[in-house]
């Protein structure tokens, strides 16, 4: 039991002692490379815990670009003297592409593990132009079968650039602005191509680029060039529309090519090698379009075109629609110009056209179709005018103007007129400007300035005069109101009248209340007239009247009637219906007399 513990302790002890120990080293496959070659830089990390180390960070290596990386790991177990020791090796392989010739240093690569940094030695690399490796022997299939092996030197070249290259073919050396150029990149090879890919997308400055062809698989044909047999493949085809003038550069196309060398013997399985090849840079002269003879409606169409218009019907009902189609076909920058514009025609509504551009595979020829849906809104005869289309003819080197036919259209009355809402509405446009028309007044009135007219101010004076008048009236009223007795005197007759009215009513009905009404009425009337308090006794009233000196007969009549009233009202049996009419007549006479006399 104790033994097992001891062994375990030993193992753990070793573990802890050696666990931190890892080894890092780097090396290259060759120290002298060509610019077309690929340099392999390997970083190896070995040790018990190598698999726990992160991928080493590659420092920036000047004049080299990393084109690929690859990693692998292997583990080995060694048993020495019965003691088992395991070791893991991690290998990181970086493919470096030299960028120019010269002597360069690959800086030390450092790996961090458990706070410790392991550093490799720097490596010096010499880069030469071209390739240091001998060009691999060309594929047997491309050897000229007719020249046989006897004269191997006739067309055979060992130089890589003779056996593997890209050409850029340009269909035109000099073009006008907007005139398309087709550039075809072809890969020529006398090797077996294993794989290829584009290094980067060329930058076509000053051009509008349309891709015509990009291969998706290897597709080689046999061809002879300069008397030699090659496998050739179109790797890229673009149509370029110059947007600038002057000498424009067509950039080279760069590709990574993997070739496979042929096995030379039974044991030689051949190998694959990587090459970066570039086509030669070319240029093209782009001329400006001539200014002279440039039509006003020129909108940038360059090439050779034809235009035609068509109309779906010549006769229709209002509210119905028809199509008007413009077709521009030909070779040139079909995508880069504006089609001719239809003018506004009142009562014909052109719906935003549907434009389809059918470009052929070559990207420089095709057809542009502009389809208008037109709604006839009112009946009448209309003409769709002839449209002009101008373009620069590159073959004749001059501007040309084409015309479409004009179409006459008859719109008959329709049942319902389609009035589309929304977008179809437009503001009424002012077509001209002028002064307003003269005014035809029926009655020519002389404008009287009221402020200057007498009548106006006269009215003011009248209005103003109403104030003192009202003031006088108000003063008068005040006076009357203050003199209450005066008022009583004035109103006495009214009171008497009121009582007499009720009295006459009682008289008609032969009622004893007649006497009461007469007595009270006369009493109050006289009190008001004499300016003495109401409700004074008869005796007092009579004596007051006597003082004022009333005619004797009236006074006696008054006394008489008062007596009669008292008799009828207060003496039992004093009232008789027979006397009432006579008494009423008498009262009337007395009242009449009194009101006539001035007291």
């Amino acid at each position: 039991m104790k033994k097992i513990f001891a062994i375990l302790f030993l193992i753990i002890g070793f573990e802890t002692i050696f666990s931190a120990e890892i080894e890092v080293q780097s090396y290259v496959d060759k120290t002298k490379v060509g610019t077309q070659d690929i340099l392999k830089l390997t970083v190896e990390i070995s040790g018990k815990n190598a698999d726990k180390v992160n991928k080493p960070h590659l420092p920036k290596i000047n004049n080299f670009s990393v084109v690929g990386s690859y990693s692998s790991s292997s583990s080995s177990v060694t048993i020495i003297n019965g003691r088992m020791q395991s070791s893991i090796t991690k290998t990181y392989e970086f493919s470096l592409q030299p960028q120019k010739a010269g002597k360069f240093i690959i800086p030390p690569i450092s790996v961090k593990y458990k706070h410790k940094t392991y550093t490799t030695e720097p490596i010096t690399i010499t880069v030469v132009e071209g390739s240091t490796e001998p060009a691999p022997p060309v594929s047997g299939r491309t050897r000229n079968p007719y020249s046989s092996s006897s004269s191997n030197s006739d067309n055979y070249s060992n130089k890589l650039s003779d056996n593997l290259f890209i050409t850029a073919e340009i269909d035109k050396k000099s073009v006008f602005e907007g005139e398309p150029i087709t550039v075809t990149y072809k890969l020529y090879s006398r090797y077996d191509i294993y794989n290829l890919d584009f290094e980067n997308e060329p930058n076509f400055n000053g051009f509008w680029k349309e891709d015509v062809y990009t291969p998706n698989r290897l597709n080689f044909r046999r061809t002879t060039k300069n008397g030699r047999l090659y496998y050739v493949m179109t790797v890229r085809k673009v149509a370029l529309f110059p947007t600038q003038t002057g000498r424009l550069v067509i950039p080279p196309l760069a590709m990574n090519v993997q070739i496979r060398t042929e096995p030379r013997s039974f044991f030689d399985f051949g190998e694959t090698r990587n090459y970066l090849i570039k086509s030669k840079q070319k240029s093209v002269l782009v001329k400006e379009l001539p200014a002279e003879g440039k039509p006003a409606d020129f909108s940038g169409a360059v090439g050779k075109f034809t235009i035609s218009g068509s109309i779906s019907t010549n006769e229709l009902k209002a509210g119905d629609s028809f199509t008007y189609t413009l077709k521009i076909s030909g070779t040139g920058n079909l995508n880069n110009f504006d089609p001719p514009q239809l003018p506004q025609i009142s009562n014909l509504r052109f719906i935003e056209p549907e434009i389809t551009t059918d470009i052929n595979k070559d990207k420089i020829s095709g057809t542009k179709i502009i389809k208008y849906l037109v709604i006839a809104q009112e009946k009448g005869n209309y003409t769709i005018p002839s449209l002009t289309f101008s373009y620069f003819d590159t073959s004749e080197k001059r501007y040309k103007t084409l015309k479409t036919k004009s179409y006459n259209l008859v719109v008959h009355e329709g049942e319902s007129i389609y009035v589309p809402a929304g977008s179809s509405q437009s503001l009424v446009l002012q077509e001209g400007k002028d002064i307003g028309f003269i005014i035809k007044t029926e009655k020519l009135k002389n404008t009287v300035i009221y402020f200057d007219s007498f009548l106006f101010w006269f009215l003011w004076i009248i209005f103003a005069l109403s104030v003192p008048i009202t003031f006088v009236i108000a003063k008068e009223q005040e006076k009357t109101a203050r003199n209450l007795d005066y008022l009583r005197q004035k109103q006495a007759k009214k009171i008497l009248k009121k009582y007499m009215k009720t009295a006459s009513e009682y008289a008609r009905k032969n009622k004893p209340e007649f006497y009461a009404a007469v007595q009270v009425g006369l009493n109050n009337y006289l009190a008001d007239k004499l300016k003495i308090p109401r409700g004074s006794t008869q005796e007092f009233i009579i004596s007051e009247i006597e003082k004022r000196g009333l005619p004797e007969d009236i006074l006696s009549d008054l006394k008489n009637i008062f007596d009669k009233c008292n008799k009828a009202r207060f003496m039992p049996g004093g009232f008789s219906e027979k006397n009432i009419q006579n008494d009423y007549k008498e009262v009337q006479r007395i009242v009449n007399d009194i009101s006539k006399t001035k007291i």
Partner: protein
Amino acid sequence: MKKSIILAILFAVTFFAFSENQHDEIFRKAVTTYEQKDFSNSLQLFLGLENNGIVNADLFYNIGNCYFRLNKLGKAILYYKKALKVNSSHRAAERNLKYALTFTKDKQTIEKEDSISLFFHKLFNFFSLNLLAIILLILFLLIIFIINLIILRYRETEKTVPVFFLFVFISLFVLFAILGYLKWKHFHGENEAVLLSQSAIGYSGPNEDFTRVFTIHEGMIFTIEKTENGWSLIKLPNGLGGWIKNDNFERVKI
């Protein structure tokens, strides 16, 4: 007193009715002549009416149109201004004046005013002089009515409501009176003038020996500051001042 008012009104009505008949005849004739595009004869008829003492915005407007058709831009502008003087809310005259001003050689758009002065300007033009007179008369009538009411009912303790209304009407009256007075002054003002000659040179003094200050062209509207010996000191809308000869322009006056 009442009789005299009625008499005055009757007199006025008959006087106008009598002359109107004749004038309407001429006016109709002038309109038909204009419609036949005989602008110069139409103009003579219209001008005859003006010489008969007719003051009417429509008439001045029509005269302006005749002058415009006869390519006398200065006169046209002058008469549109006259029409606007008689009736400041004459929309047609305002429009035509604006349009005619686009033909003058000198740019004379009114500089952009701030919103407050623009408001007063609009208020000023909204009420014509006679409308203001009527408004003032009605307000005066209301004030007098309320005063009378207060006098008659002096004994009543509740006087707040009439006094309040009296106050409101008096303030309105004062406002309109100021407006009316300004408008009336403007109406009788004869400081505005329109250049009728093709062009005129403004000098720094009332003589051709003085320095040339500016050149203005037909249709220019300006104000006259003072007049001396056949020369007038004028002020252009842009603030420039100078002396020009009197026979170059005509004042906008009725």
